[in-house]
């Protein structure tokens, strides 16, 4: 089963707290998941200031600057993993280095039934 692990963090503290992970640690962790065969994809995101929100309404494209919602914590990156069950996904999510300064939302991927 696939789980999307969404990493949220306050952007100001993500890189400035004593527990903040370095890029090298994040890379190493992603590689270790890759090694265990559970990695589908993972990326870190640029700051939320670079976000653009797009909507299609009545055939008309609407484009706004910024994220879809203003929140204290922003989406900083994601891991798409393959795990046996929620317990295994929680293990992977809990060890994401950024979980020490932010939080990780774990969402099962829904199978589409065409």
């Amino acid at each position: 089963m696939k789980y999307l692990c969404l990493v949220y963090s306050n952007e100001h503290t993500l890189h400035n707290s004593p527990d903040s992970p370095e890029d090298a640690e994040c890379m190493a962790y992603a590689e270790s998941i890759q090694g265990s065969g559970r990695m589908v994809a993972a990326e870190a995101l640029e700051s939320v200031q670079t976000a653009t929100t797009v909507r299609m309404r009545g055939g008309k494209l609407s484009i706004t600057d910024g994220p879809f919602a203003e929140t204290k914590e922003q989406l900083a990156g994601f891991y798409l993993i393959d795990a046996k069950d929620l317990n295994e996904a929680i293990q992977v999510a809990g060890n994401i280095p950024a979980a020490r300064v932010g939080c990780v939302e774990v969402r099962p991927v829904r199978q589409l039934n065409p």
Partner: protein
Amino acid sequence: MSAETVKARVEQVYRQDSRRILATLIRLLGDFDLAEEALHEAFFIAVERWQRDGVPDNPRAWLVSAGRFKAIDSLRRRARFAASQPMLIAQLEELEQGQWSDEDVEDDRLRLIFTCCHPALAADAQVPLTLREVCDLTTEQIARAFLAAPAAIAQRIVRAKAKIRDARIPYQVPSRAELPERLDSVLRVIYLVFNEGYSASMGAELTREDLTREAIRLGRLLMELLPEAEVMGLLALMLLHESRRPARTSSTGELVLLDEQSRSLWDAELIAEGCALVEAALKTRRFGPYCLQAAIAAVHAEAPTAEETDWPQIVGLYDVLLRAVPSPVIELNRAAALAKRDGPQEGLRLVDGILARGDLTDYHLAHSARAEFCRQLGQVEEARAAYRRALELTQQLPERRFIEARLAGLQ
């Protein structure tokens, strides 16, 4: 065999084993709703079959097997609509009888408890789900016990089951490494059930025996399956509190404080069992907050009169407890014990310290403790104000009457 005898036997097996059979069916079928449906169908056909063929040697295995066949039938009917069903049916048909041996069945009960108390489920769903699936209380009974609408309870249970299925919460006993954290969640659920029964938060009665009974039953089951120190501690704590229940309310339903309880009404058998468990748990050296609270309850239980209570030991145990789990409620309880040891002015100083920090300002027991200390110190006006604040904060009728009586007694 007469129809009556068979029916009585089926009912007996239901009472004794329905939760075990359900736990195994959930493992085999991987779905709570399908397993519940299969369980009821299995008991339904047992009445007719056992009358015709006699009661089987192992009724539990017979019922698991019958439930499995019923589930296969039901999946076949659904298979016309869902493409994934044939594979599950094939898996189910291949299962051997050996896959529900008695040993597995005991593990299944533990799996069921850990799944219902999984921390990924909403906290307010864990309690009703456990009472529904593990204790077989109906939604209506749970709703009555928690003074909630049955529809609201049913919805929490439905949502929790949907999350178990859709997020794939596994049906398993956690590994050694995960156990402490996961066990906490199970113990917390049991303790919540007990507390609600021991000191109902609202309504006309002080205690709800049905809930304390279920909590103790859960505690005994967990103890039988997983005799960890904290499991012993929680069971001991519940037994020791329960031992005092007959003495906690007067014949007219009024609240009786620990000091004033008639100790001859305490249940000596429960006290003996509780104290033995505390001792065994403390010996493991792996004890935690539940053992420490049980040890405090045991010191009270062993005092022949209120005056002979070993307050220095109780204060010492609260000190250890407070280091293990810093909490303002424990600080408040420690203040009450310290007041017994060193006098009400010491208790008042500690309670005022807690309230000055902004903790427990909406907790009625903090204000009634303050009122009590002030009353003992002859500070009548202060006591009156604190009792009034406590009265504003509690909904429970016996507690309200108790505070009103104290207010009336202030001169």
